[in-house]
């Protein structure tokens, strides 16, 4: 008899944490409703907190925090990479430093955040980063509200897409690449441009897609594809570091224009103005021939010379250009003292003495036949 009872019990659940009589189950269902209301209220709260985003500028937040969160790639030679001493270096990194020098006054107050191409705009929108300085091509759909909804600063590097091939392949133009395999990074404008140009010319190709540049290079070196395509700046870096660099060449043809620019969240004029004028200040400083070395002399000169109004305004001796932007009046002097002007930044990272040499070309001042020009800082 007892055995029977025990055997019947075998099918019941093993344990319960607290035993409640069955009739109380109704009450626990009732509490489900309560939970739903709590959830609804919580969601509503999240909703209202979201609406606050528009009212406070990120510029104030950065200043209050005392630190700039800058999104970089961390994987592009010459633009951003990790040195042996554990510090980031590159032109993108120097732009972050310049912005930090302008907004906070200290170029070391930057928190670098390494991002891959697909996640960069999400990170910007979610506030994970304040400024995106990551080899990003400035184009309409990224800038517009209907697209990624970010605001671009002026171009810091005019790039163009090129194609790297082996000399032995006897490929001299895009036409020769008909029906061949091409290594390309996925999720980038590079991939789209390649597709556009081949369709336009009614040529066939087989893309082999990789996540980042290193893998594209690896694929190319292993001979998985006849050619690899990327921005010419990157191709120059890649070619410089191939063991048999003399056997490779970059085709003359340029597939696209790729103006690379930093970006900040759209609809935040205060921050995007500060970023924009930081870049212009770098270019203007080169126009005025103000360098990291002579900045203090220039300041002394400007202080002594009442007639040189444009220099005095630029260096914050006269006027209140900085405070109009919500920055300190001497923000330009502060930037140049810490990072140097645009030309210095360029030479440090991509100049003839650096390990990734790219001729300045379009990235020269307009006075030297390039495209860089800063509107007057008035």
């Amino acid at each position, binding site marked *: 008899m007892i055995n029977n009872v*025990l055997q019947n*019990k*075998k099918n*019941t*659940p*093993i*344990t*319960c*944490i*607290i*035993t409640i009589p069955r009739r109380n189950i109704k009450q*626990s*269902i009732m*509490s*489900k409703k309560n939970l739903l209301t709590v959830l609804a209220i919580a969601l509503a709260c*999240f909703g209202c*907190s*979201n609406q*606050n*985003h528009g009212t*406070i500028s990120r510029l104030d*937040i950065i200043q209050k925090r005392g630190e700039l969160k800058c999104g970089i790639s*961390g*994987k*592009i*030679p*010459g633009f*951003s*990479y*990790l*040195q*042996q001493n*554990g*510090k980031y270096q590159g032109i993108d990194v120097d732009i972050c430093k310049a912005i930090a020098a302008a907004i906070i006054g200290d170029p070391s107050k930057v*928190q670098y*955040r*390494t*991002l*891959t191409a697909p*996640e960069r705009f*999400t*990170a910007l*929108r*979610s*506030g*994970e980063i304040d400024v995106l300085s990551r080899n990003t091509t400035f184009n309409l759909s990224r800038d517009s509200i209907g697209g990624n909804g970010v605001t671009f600063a002026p171009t810091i590097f005019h790039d163009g897409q090129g194609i790297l091939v082996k000399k032995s392949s006897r490929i001299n133009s895009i036409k020769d690449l008909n029906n061949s395999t091409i290594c390309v990074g996925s999720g980038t404008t590079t991939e789209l441009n390649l597709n556009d140009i081949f369709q336009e010319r009614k040529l066939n190709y087989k893309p082999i897609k990789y996540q*980042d*540049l*290193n*893998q594209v*290079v*690896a694929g190319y070196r292993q001979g998985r594809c006849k050619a690899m395509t990327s921005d010419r700046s990157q191709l120059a*870096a*890649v070619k*410089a*570091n*191939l*063991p048999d660099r003399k056997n490779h060449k970059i085709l003359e043809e340029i597939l696209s224009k790729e103006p690379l620019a930093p970006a900040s969240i759209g609809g935040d004029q205060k921050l995007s103005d500060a970023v924009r004028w930081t870049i212009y200040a770098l270019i203007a400083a080169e126009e005025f021939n103000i360098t990291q070395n002579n900045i203090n002399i220039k300041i002394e000169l400007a202080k002594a010379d009442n007639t040189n109004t444009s220099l005095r305004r630029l260096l914050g001796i006269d006027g209140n250009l900085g405070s109009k932007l919500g920055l300190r009046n001497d923000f330009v002097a502060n930037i140049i003292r810490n990072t140097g002007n645009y030309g210095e930044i360029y030479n440090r990272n991509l100049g003839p003495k650096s*390990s*990734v040499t790219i001729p300045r070309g379009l990235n020269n001042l307009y006075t030297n036949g390039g495209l860089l020009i800063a509107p007057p800082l008035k």
Partner: protein
Amino acid sequence: MRVYIRWLQNMKLKRSNILNYIITLLLATLIVSILVQFVNWFFLEANWNVISQNFPIFFLGLYPKDQYWRPLIWIILIILSLVLRIKKRSNKRVQKISIFLSVLIIPLGIFLLGGGLGLTSIPSREWGGLILTLLLTLCSGVLALPLGIILALGRHSNLYFINRISRLYIEFMRALPLIAVLFFGQLLIPLFLPIGLEINRFLRAVIAFSFFTSAYIAEDVRGGLQSIPPTQIESASALGLSQRQIIQFVLLPQALRTAIPSLTNQAVGLFQNTSLMAILGLMELLGISRSILANPNFIGNYLEVYVFIAIIYWLIGTVIALFARNIEHQLNSFK
């Protein structure tokens, strides 16, 4: 050797096995040639400068140089606590120390790495490399285990509400890919939070990992619970044990022991999964390696770096597995 000779003799006996010979020969040459190539690359072609020059960065990331002793002490403590646990010690003092160490290893790690109380504080974004991988694994594992056990018990409960919630949670989490959970934690949670309020990235990763892993652990523990015959509970309650006592002294010790092999699986999996954070920009072992690879001095040395970190992942994965096997043997000797 004897086995080999016997195998050859067997082969000779069967005349129809010429095809077998050929396949064996082909496979053998293939394996040997791959091995030769690899050894050749490993010793002659590979440029190991990329490893030697960045050695500390692989392990400690961007951690300030003058503070390297702190993570080193922590690593030594981890190894010590593992070694002390390997053999069943009769010495009670050693036993006490080892338990003390394993309980305190995470708070100690966070204190040593993060600083405070006299040590210079170092923000979590400067933690990186292997040390971050280890801390991420340990923290997530330690959070996930109790959560998983509670979920498993909840799923067994005959309380309608608790049962449903646990089941819903487990099924929901298991249906999601890990990368989606991580993406949510890293990029979407900041969207919901009011501006200015920020949760540490490391913490967000730990929470995402432990929430995800706990669902799997819950199922493993449930398997352990189901292996216990119900008569044990009945006899326990007949002896007058309370619900809590039954769970604490009868169910969990047996269930967890049964679940150890699959829990080990989860631990190794969790450790390997932390490498997914590289996609989301956390500088753990894989993330830091990819940044090192972009240094113009080391471009194209990807194979050296990936082989190196593969060896590290393999070593630690093996240590976890061996350690778990050891614990299992120790527990089984109680039987």
